[in-house]
């Protein structure tokens, strides 16, 4: 009744135009409206090529469905839940130290949702308002007298690493490689003393952190944790890496001493900054 002819084209389906094929696919997928379905049915009745095409599509659906069924048969035995629960525990534990994850996909969803978060908050014309605000901020920043560079040498003597944070947070004009280069040539004894002193003082702060070079030989950073705002700076000296993690303001502990807000924390344990997931 329905002998297919492989010799005629791929499937003997040469008689169908692309539009006809699309019409039939829409119908076979159950996506056709009333009139489209009617056209598709007429085509199926009138054309043997259409019927052959329909046959091949239905066969394909069946084969692909069966393949997936077979291919994932083994997975039924896998206890996925216990793995998921373990990972959730890890994530919740990590969130105590690093704050909850804000996933990039969420941002993507917002971007794709048609209306941005800015528009949702400020309504139409949000971008103009935001632009004006940014321009005003920049103007204020530029006319403000800069006093910080005088502080830097002092800090370098007192704490050879804290200047890195200050420079990076208080000026937008200097790049990170400048900051990192100040670490070069630091006396190791001075560095260790400073490290102990700073660790004692700043143990509980959540300010940006600097990982000492001797700890980061094999450092993996879970960048998603920082909401995509993590900057990874490789110092000129091999093996000395600084990792900056910007945390959302909402994550900052209320009890934190504001005076310490811009100071770095020197980590004693690599695990403090590396994702416990150990990916």
């Amino acid at each position, binding site marked *: *009744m*329905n002998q*297919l002819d*492989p010799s005629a084209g*791929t*499937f003997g389906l040469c008689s169908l135009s*692309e539009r006809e*094929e*699309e019409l039939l*696919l*829409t*119908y*076979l*997928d*159950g*996506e056709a409206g009333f009139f489209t*379905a009617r056209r598709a*049915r007429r085509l*199926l*009745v*009138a054309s043997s090529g259409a019927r052959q095409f*329909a*046959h*091949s*599509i*239905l*066969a*394909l*659906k*069946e*084969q*692909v*469905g*069966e*393949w*997936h*069924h*077979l*291919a*994932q*048969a*083994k*997975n*039924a035995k*896998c206890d*996925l839940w216990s*793995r*998921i*629960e373990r*990972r*959730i525990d890890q*994530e919740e534990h990590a969130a105590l130290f690093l704050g*909850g*994850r804000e*996933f990039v*996909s*969420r941002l*993507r*969803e917002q971007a*794709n949702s048609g209306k941005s978060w800015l528009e949702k908050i400020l309504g139409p014309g949000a971008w103009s308002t935001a632009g004006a605000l940014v321009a005003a901020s920049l103007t204020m920043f530029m006319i403000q007298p800069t006093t910080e560079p005088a502080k830097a040498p002092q800090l370098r003597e007192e704490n050879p690493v804290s200047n890195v944070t200050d420079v990076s947070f208080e000026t937008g004009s200097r790049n990170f490689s400048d900051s990192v280069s100040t670490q070069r040539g630091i006396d190791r004894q001075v560095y260790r003393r400073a490290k102990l002193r700073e660790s004692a003082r700043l143990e509980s702060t959540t300010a940006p952190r600097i990982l000492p070079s001797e700890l980061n030989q094999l450092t993996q950073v879970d960048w998603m944790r920082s909401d995509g705002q993590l900057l990874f700076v490789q110092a000129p000296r091999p093996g000395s890496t600084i990792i900056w993690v910007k945390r959302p303001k909402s994550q900052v502990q209320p009890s934190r001493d504001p005076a310490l807000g811009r100071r770095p924390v020197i980590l004693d344990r690599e695990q403090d900054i590396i994702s416990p997931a150990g990916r």
Partner: protein
Amino acid sequence: MFETVEKEVKVKRSSTLAQEENVVEIDEADVIARSLRGDRTAYRLLVEKYQDRIFALCYSLLRSREDAEDITQETFVKAYLSLKNFEGASSFYTWVYRIAYNMVIDFKRKVKRKGGDAVQLDEAVQSGAGAEGIISEAVDPERELERKQISQRIGQALGELSDPHRAVITLREVDGMSYDEIAEITGVSKGTVMSRLHYARKRLQELLSDLILSSPGTGGDLAALLPERSSD
């Protein structure tokens, strides 16, 4: 008469997985609300309901069982941690699928950046051995071998498709999703989904022509379409 055809098409539309899985009827809104309050047992219901489908999508795109399991696991972890962001604008499963799809794409990018050869084909996929669990139940050894070969052929043919094409085929043929749902998950327009499906099917038709021609399983479906001619 037309109604009969409609019914047949609609039956076909529901996916293989959807047909065969043990659908657990749960009140999703309630389960999500409980999960948001930290009720892990409630969240487990959601995981168990969707894990096979999510795995199927990941496996189809990654073609490595281990990687697919890892991404499936991470998808549910991420979904749990982001549950507060789920606004209910779309269904939960569409939302989870979207997370899974994005995670697979990110994973593949990461592998590519590291200089890896995308994702290696699972040995089980190449040999068709992944189907052991089911195949061993077959009584007839000839049939068993045949199914294994078919599975291998289809796996290879799907491997010829690009990721976006494989994704739409999987979401459509395995999960039985609508064009709109596929568009939402993959982040493209409905027109693009239709075009990708069309291309993917044409390509698979070319690659699997002999299998499709000899396929006995669709006789009933086609017969359901054909009576139209005799009636007119």
